[in-house]
């Protein structure tokens, strides 16, 4: 009999332990997602950014004027169909603004995604293989870092067609060094860990280890940096288009709209502040989302925000 009670008690504790274990067995993804969802500022920023992105595609469908219509006459005041008035050529300023937002977002996300892919690959391979490959890849990074990014971008965009994807590609070409340095550092420390050694001992090749072991373990750093590089790309593109060496018509961007309208800042402030506000909103919300992601991925962060 004592035996039975003992087993029952043991069963009970085992069940309790199992139950406790069940309650804690959340996947890493859901923990991180949970932390991110509870980051209030990041969620508000995400909502604002999504709203901005969606409305830049949807609102033009309901506007009375197309972005290309020039029938109205230059510099009309807001009102009467033109919610933000018209610019010098008589194009509807709101339609222009929304179209610029579309292009700026497209450029920024293209730059962030492609430069992250290139940077992560180079950084992870350099950090894992070490030796001559590492030092030559890092000298390549130094090489790209010494020439002023905006100058070479201007030269290349001027040499090719100034369309939005050329600007995006060239910006990405000079934007991968930072993430490559960071991932190299992480790959160096990760490749000294036992699980990488175990994988190598059981015959895992370089690409297997890089893709299955190194990159999944750096996903937090990669995501945060990719997010932050979106906001850098928005600002760099705006600067480039402002000096007239970035995107050109028929494509457009927020920087180009600012350049078109900045002389009107006192007379017709709505023409200037619209694109200005759009740029600030995009880069600010993305910074906050990056901050929220950083907090969510940080394993030292155990505090749950209410």
């Amino acid at each position: 009999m004592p035996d039975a009670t003992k087993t029952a008690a043991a069963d009970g504790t085992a069940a309790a332990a199992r139950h406790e274990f069940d309650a804690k067995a959340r996947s890493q993804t859901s923990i991180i997602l949970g932390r991110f969802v509870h980051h209030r500022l990041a969620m508000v920023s995400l909502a604002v950014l999504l709203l901005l992105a969606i409305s830049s595609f949807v609102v033009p469908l309901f506007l009375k004027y197309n972005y290309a219509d020039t029938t109205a006459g230059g510099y009309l005041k807001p009102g009467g169909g033109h919610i933000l008035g018209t610019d010098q050529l008589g194009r509807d300023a709101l339609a222009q603004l929304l179209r610029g937002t579309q292009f700026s977002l497209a450029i920024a996300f293209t730059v962030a995604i492609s430069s992250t892919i290139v940077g992560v690959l180079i950084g992870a391979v350099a950090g894992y293989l070490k030796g001559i490959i590492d030092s030559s890849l890092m000298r390549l990074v130094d090489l790209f870092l010494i020439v002023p990014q905006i100058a070479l971008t201007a030269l290349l965009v001027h040499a090719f067609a100034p369309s939005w994807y050329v600007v995006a590609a060239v910006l990405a070409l000079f934007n991968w060094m930072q993430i490559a340095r960071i991932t190299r550092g992480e790959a160096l420390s990760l490749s000294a860990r036992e699980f990488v050694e175990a994988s190598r001992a059981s015959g895992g090749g370089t690409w297997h280890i890089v893709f299955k072991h190194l990159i999944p373990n750096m996903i937090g750093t990669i995501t945060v940096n990719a997010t932050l590089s979106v906001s850098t790309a928005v600002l760099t593109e705006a600067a480039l288009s402002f000096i007239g060496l970035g995107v050109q018509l028929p494509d457009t961007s927020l920087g180009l709209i600012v350049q078109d309208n900045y002389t009107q800042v006192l007379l017709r402030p709505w023409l200037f502040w619209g694109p200005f506000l759009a740029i600030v909103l995009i880069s600010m919300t993305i910074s906050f989302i990056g901050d929220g992601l950083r907090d969510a991925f940080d394993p030292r962060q155990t505090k749950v925000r209410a």
Partner: protein
Amino acid sequence: MFQYLIRRLLISIPILLIGSFLVFILVASAGDPLAGLRTKPGITAQQIQSLSAQLGLDHSILVRYWDWLTGFVRGDWGNSIALGEAQAPVFDTVSNALWVTMRLVIGAELIALVLGIAVGVFSAVRQYSIFDYLMTSVAFLMFSMPIACVAVVVKNYGIQFNELLLSLHLNRWLTTAGPPANGFGHNLGQVIVNYSGTFLLPTISLMTISFAAYSRFQRASMLETLNADYVRTARAKGLSQSRVIFRHAMRNALIPVSTLFALNIGAIIGGAIITERVFGWNGMGTVLVKAVSNYDPPTLMGWFAVTATIVVVFNLISDLLYGLLDPRIRLA
């Protein structure tokens, strides 16, 4: 230390050589320097040919690079070939522009550094106070603003301020179109008024982003040192609060910011393009924009060589500073 310096200098030479060669290829393949001439009426094919021989365009790229490099080292950077530049020597163009930009950038960066350190230290000491939250939001806002818009807004407020001064029967103070061509005036009062009026607006617009970066960096490193054991020891010894903060915590917290400062100066000399454009300063930015849009290879090469060298030199300074300020780091 000395050995380290020599070794770093020796490493940077091949990097600069390879970099300049790649940029040379890029610049050479980015366009045709005689395109403007070819479409001009009354220019024969023979003239084009002799001109292209004169410019060395009929040689291979390696020969052209070697010619450029040997010329560059000897101080002969070639002449501008853009139409309307009157074959201005590149050396003069670039060095004048560099002087203009340096005057603007170094002052702005120094002011941003001092302000940034002060704000950073104060935010760290009073962490989570209203001041800290306010400065954090200001820094985030400054990071998110395109410098072009900041410059435009600052310029227009400057113009309005001038009009206010005029309406009060005073002279204009702020300059929004570059430094005065004929000096800053004769007596001291005039010089001070002209000098401050000329530099104030571009300095503000250059400062914003640097200031945000410095204050955030200083706050983070100050928080780290304030929580370090040796600061607790200093407090336990009974030192006064100001002595603990300024003598013990702040001095160590200055290390990361000072290296960031050296890196930033190198980068911003080529990056002040927007501010120079808006305020009409004929600095490095204006030279670059002109050289790109007129396609002027000699000027472009001179520009790239100078800025790349400056970046390399300031990177080196920042590494050396790190070793000097933090004796735990041995440079070998």
